[in-house]
């Protein structure tokens, strides 16, 4: 749950809205950008993330410029910029579905500013599991590299009964 505080000081204008996340320190909230070929896929995944880790900004970039299955570099850049704005300087971790989506991300990053690049990390983890694990980390207040590590490590998180991590 987001708790929004508006602080007034006597005789002055209201200070900026402060948004605090229960788990975060000082409102740190790294965002996620989901880059995939299918718009339906990422919409569904964002809904899952919202359920597991409310308050984490999630940007979506899926489908080609023509609304077909595919990826679009301009849309990735747009989604990244939206997410970076929502995460207010805490950065964003990008997840992709297949290898060709990586190209769209790379092209988008080339068009981005140096500051935007410094605040972005690209994960090679699986998009669904990675998004959920990364979002949970982000909701707990982890920094950019902590969230990236969660996304990257998602592939080896055991899913099947009887698979125990060493």
């Amino acid at each position, binding site marked *: 749950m987001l708790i929004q505080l508006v602080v007034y000081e006597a005789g002055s204008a209201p200070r900026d809205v402060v948004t605090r996340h229960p788990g975060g320190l000082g409102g740190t909230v790294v965002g996620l950008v989901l880059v995939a070929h299918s718009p339906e896929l990422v919409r569904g995944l964002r809904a899952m993330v919202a359920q597991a880790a409310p308050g984490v900004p999630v940007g979506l970039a899926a489908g080609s410029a023509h609304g*077909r299955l595919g*990826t*679009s570099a301009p849309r990735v850049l747009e989604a990244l910029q939206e997410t970076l704005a929502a995460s207010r300087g805490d950065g964003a971790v990008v997840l992709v579905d297949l*290898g*060709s989506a990586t*190209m769209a991300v790379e*092209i988008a990053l080339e068009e981005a500013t140096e500051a935007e690049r410094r605040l972005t990390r690209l994960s090679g983890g699986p998009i669904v599991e990675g998004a959920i694990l990364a979002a949970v980390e982000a909701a707990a207040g982890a920094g950019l590299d902590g969230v990236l590590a969660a996304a990257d490590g998602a592939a080896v998180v055991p899913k099947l009964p009887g698979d125990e991590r060493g």
Partner: protein
Amino acid sequence: MECGSLPAGVRARAMSATWARAWLRASAAAVAEQRAWLTDLDAAIGDGDHGINLDRGLRRVLEALDGAETLVLPTGDLLEWAGRVIMGSVGGASGALYGRALQRAGGTLRAEAAAAAEPRDPPAPDGTSAPAGVQRAGPGRGPGDVVGRGPGDDPDGPSSSGPRNGAGDRVRVLVLAFDAAVEAIGALGRASPGDKTMLDVLVPASLALRRSMSEGDDVPAALSQALGAAALGLEATRPLVARRGRASYLGERSAGHLDPGAASSLLLVRALVSTCPDLPRDRRLPGD
């Protein structure tokens, strides 16, 4: 040389805007005509949309090719523009790869043209006294821009560099542009020859161009060599196991099929050869 007769000491561009436009048209026509073939190849080892996507992108290029904005573009800028259109409208990996390749090739040609236009001798007459034509407004007007030209004229015009070995230098610049395209695809796609991709056509073609250059071939001869190597390169993709792209998910099952990206690359190389302005009659390709 292609632009009719040029003043003495003036060197023609490696690739005129006229040729570049003809190439883009011929490429669009070839891909449209072979769309079903490309789709079938991609259906066998990919997601089946390569023909459709590339056709759409090239049609987009074609639609805007005769617009006021693109008519005045010199070659380098034109190819960069085409690259941007393709990147935005083809989608998928091939849009990004072909788009980036054209941007880099265009950038190389633009840089070479700028270097060539640095005055070494007194500038040759460049047609500024020609009858009223299209004047290009805006900042940064340089030697490659259209000044006082008619609508049918080549926006590159003559350059004002001193005398050089014309034919050899043109091949050299083509090699540089081709290499830039190949390097862009390899870097963005993280691919190498043997991965069963468009590089398996384009790298042999670029090597053949380079060999031709060292043997002193002129542009048409060099391109013929490149086309031969490209055709062999496509057939050589048949037994390969894909290591990149959607086909790589099929593993061993990708062997025994031609690579669709390599196939479309061959079409583009073929279009480059068939539109080469200096191609002698006996080297014209069947059907041209």
